[in-house]
């Protein structure tokens, strides 16, 4: 299942999560972000139970994006135990992302 992260649920769903969490910071106006959407959706299904995966709309949730200094999208951040441990910028294919976030 693909999660929808927001400024409101970020602490509960991401920072306090027991599983690692991959957050896809995106916006509807960003071309490469739209190309990433199906990749994220597929990964969320495949890695269910191992990694929580979801998207975060930077327009609807500007506070979190600002907190993590997001000035370029798409950006993926992997969180573990409430800490950002890996940042990936720009469009990436599925296997590339899986390789980068494999624990």
């Amino acid at each position, binding site marked *: 299942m693909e999660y929808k992260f927001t400024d409101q649920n970020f602490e509960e769903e991401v920072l306090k999560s027991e599983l690692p969490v991959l957050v896809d910071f995106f916006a509807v106006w960003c*071309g490469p972000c*739209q190309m990433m959407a199906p990749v994220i959706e597929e990964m969320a299904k495949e890695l269910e139970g191992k990694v929580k995966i979801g998207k975060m709309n930077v327009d609807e949730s500007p506070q979190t994006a600002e907190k993590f200094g*997001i*000035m*370029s999208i*798409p950006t993926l951040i992997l969180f573990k135990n409430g800490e950002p441990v890996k940042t990936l910028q720009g469009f990436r*294919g599925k*296997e590339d992302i899986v390789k980068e976030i494999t624990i």
Partner: protein
Amino acid sequence: MLYDVIIIGSGPAGLTASIYTSRYKLSNLVIGKLPGGTITYADKVQNFPGVSEISGVQLGEKMLSQAKVLGGEIVTENVKSLGKNHDVFTVASEYDKEYQSKTLIIASGTGRRKLNIPGEGEYVGKGVSYCTNCDAPFFKNKTVILVGGANSACSGAIHLAEYAQKVYLVYRKSELRAEPIWVEEVKSNPKIEVIYDTNLLEIIGDGSKVTQVKLDKEINREMSLPTDGVFVEIGGIPTSNFLSSLEVEMDKSGYIVVNEEMVTNVQGVFAAGDVTNKSLVLQQTVTACAQGAIAGYSVFKYLKQNKRLTK
């Protein structure tokens, strides 16, 4: 499986080649790192015939779905290397997957050209960007610099000006070389100031974001210019490094040399789009598509002549 053709690159040239080869009933696999290719970075496309205005990503998606519907198989991977054994080509991806085909169409396009100046790499994603369409809204009411002077630079500056309070368009030459329709719009936009004959020497920041740039010429009596962001739109460099093992002929800049039929010097290898030397006249979606169509037809003709069409 032995494909009739493997198309390397999933931008307009590669996807058009897939559309055409599918209609010639050739089995085809498209392998590319960004579905839709470079056009997905364009905010607006207003010169693709038949479509008055469309976003680059939408145009890319339309081509992608058309290619899929017609039978093209599409995978999102980087190509690592190519091999040829008798009449069979082997394409190895970065994940060590291998695909085989009777012919190849190289439509791998270009990667973004970088400034290669100090601070650029350090501040990518912290103010340095190669995609105005992706990142312009992060610079609402801010001051930004856009480097370049061709179509993507001018259209990018106009897009940036919708958000930023001030856009400096810094160009190394004395005259912008974009289509006049873009140049006029740039010049009449009160938020955009063009700085000619000037280069960036360094991008400077405070560790977490860009704060200023150093120039090779004075502006407002200073050699530096305070800014919140630096967008780089100075064109591309051909993605042809994975071709070395096939001895495909390239010009000195790395563009693949093709003739009018998109045929390279290697039997069974064709090329189309921004990666070819023929694209240097005009690198546009419509011309990339045209080359992709020609390459598709040339593959069909080649397989027919060599009696290698699957019955």
